[in-house]
């Protein structure tokens, strides 16, 4: 792992956030969810963002994942300023650069595991043959080669999260973004999924996990703690 760390130190940065603010206007009064966050993440880092609920974790995740835009500040993703992008350009950024893994899996219930993994490739415009090869390889990689034609309701929680991981990896993203990935799983499946994350990190992926569970954060190489919309600690171990 020390090899990996030295490799990370020499890499360029993937995320560069400067003075990011996010203000929600609830009508009656304004709520400042993020108060000037500076965050740099290098390529191939494996880090976690922790904090109690209401600390601004989810808001930060949404902005990092291009699911929302900041009120103020600069956000460069892989050298590209994305803070001012509109809907469809952000959609393309999400499609090519970010792989999401959600707490509640967020698989489309009416289609099969195969079709779910294929979706990002369809949006990207990949050819039929390439799509099939990629989907089959990914589902085999997460150990679900024999479950491709199953719908999400016919899978266990751990299996669903594996499908979601395969889907997140479909377009070879620069950043894997996970939001409480083990929150809806029993401890065995949770440990299983964490193991998958470690493997992904070791394979050279940049993995960012958002969690309130320190047991999970302790497995990562860097822990960023958020409180009241500000970064209070940032330790690399």
């Amino acid at each position: 792992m020390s090899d990996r760390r030295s490799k990370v130190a020499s890499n360029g940065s993937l995320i560069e956030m400067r003075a990011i603010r996010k203000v929600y206007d609830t009508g009656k009064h304004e709520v400042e969810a993020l108060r000037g966050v500076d965050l740099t993440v290098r390529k191939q880092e494996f880090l976690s963002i922790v904090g109690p609920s209401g600390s601004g974790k989810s808001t930060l995740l949404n902005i990092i994942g291009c699911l929302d835009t900041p009120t103020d500040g600069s956000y460069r993703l892989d050298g590209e300023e994305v803070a001012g992008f509109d809907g469809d350009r952000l959609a393309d950024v999400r499609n090519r650069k970010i792989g999401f893994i959600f707490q509640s899996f967020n698989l489309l219930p009416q289609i099969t595991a195969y079709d779910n993994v294929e979706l990002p490739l369809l949006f990207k415009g990949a050819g039929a043959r390439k799509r099939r090869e990629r989907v089959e390889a990914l589902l085999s990689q997460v150990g679900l080669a024999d479950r491709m034609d199953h719908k999400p309701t016919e899978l266990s929680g751990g299996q669903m999260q594996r499908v979601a991981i395969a889907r997140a990896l479909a377009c070879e993203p620069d950043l894997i973004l996970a939001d409480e990935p083990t929150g809806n799983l029993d401890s065995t499946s949770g440990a299983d999924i964490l193991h998958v994350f470690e493997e992904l990190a070791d394979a050279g992926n940049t993995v960012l996990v958002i969690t309130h569970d320190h047991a999970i954060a302790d497995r990562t190489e860097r822990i960023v703690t958020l409180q009241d919309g500000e970064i209070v600690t940032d330790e690399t171990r």
Partner: protein
Amino acid sequence: MRLGLVFRLFRSTASIQRKRMILTVTAIAWGTISIVLLLSFGEGLKHTLTAGSTGLGESIAICWPGETQKDFAGFPAGREISLLPGDADLLKKSIPEITSASGEMQTWSAQLSYGRKNLNKRVVGVHPEWGEMRNQVPQAGGRFLNELDQELKRRVAFMGWEIAQDLFGEEDPVGKTFTINRVPFTVVGVMKDKIQMGTYGGPDKNNTVIPISTFEALMGRRFVSVMVFKPETPELMEVAKKRFYEVLGGKYRFDPTDERAIGIWDTVESQRLTANMSIGIEIFLGIIGGLTLLIGGVGVANIMYAAITHRTREIGVLMALGARRSYVMGPLVLESLALTFLGGVIGIGVGGAIVQGLAYLQQNAQSEAMKFLGEPTFSLPVAATTVLLLGSIGFIAGYFPSRRAVSIQPAEVLRYE
């Protein structure tokens, strides 16, 4: 590729609950049936009105000799004007705009006899051109009066279908001999059934028509009761009327601006009125049908709105995976169009079948009122209007709710429970 993707996504993700779908399709089908029926009946009624307004004669002028109202060339007002049958020729010769003209003499009560049957009915003497001007189309096997009949003062008659049936019953009248005031006449033709809205001197179906030369000789008349003429085109009617007064005013010495000397009724104006009326009726029926369809459309919009709300989270997921707005909206709009299309096909099918059935009943209808309603016609404009309306409804019902869903930040959509 993009359109293909939208279709693919539609195929794999469309999932409206069956019950909702049945309700929507039924609502649209119902609206479509009503608009098809209303427009078809409107179309049928328009045909009847148009046929009826030209039943008397298409853009013809009917002139009644009257009394002068103005002093002219030393003659006092109040002088009676009478026209001669020969004036028909005079009009055609001296007015280039007038292509046909005919005098008309009549008696209200002539005795028609055939076998043991006796009737007291109207008999009219006319020039041969009268037949075409006044839409006297003979049934197969017969003809209208011709120039030779006129020249030779033949004792031949052309009869309305009703009087012919009254007199001859089931027999074919053509070639049969009957008597008018005890003078034998031969039937040369019977008029085809027609819808006639305007009349003077009673409907044509009850008339017996003979050459005006024969009428003069038989009844000892000199003057015509009515003069009928037709200009080359309907637009020339006004010019023709002006010339008519000039020519006859010159001959009979009355002021050409004295419109009471000879009264004229032309059918151009009434045809225009009828045309406007039938357009009005069509618009009215169309609006009623359109509103009914709109209710169905509101149903679709409602269902789509509910379906999209139901799937808000799914939409958020698609957006998180990098779906552009059109990839999210496209399948939803397609879904809405598909529902509308299905309802429309059912509605047009059922509506068309009902129209066909009613048209069949109408063809065999006996009552005047049913006849007047006409045959409902499912025409191309009706179909095009319906399809256009359905298409717009389907598109709007899918477009607006889905645009609303994709216009908010995906973070917010994903948070929706």
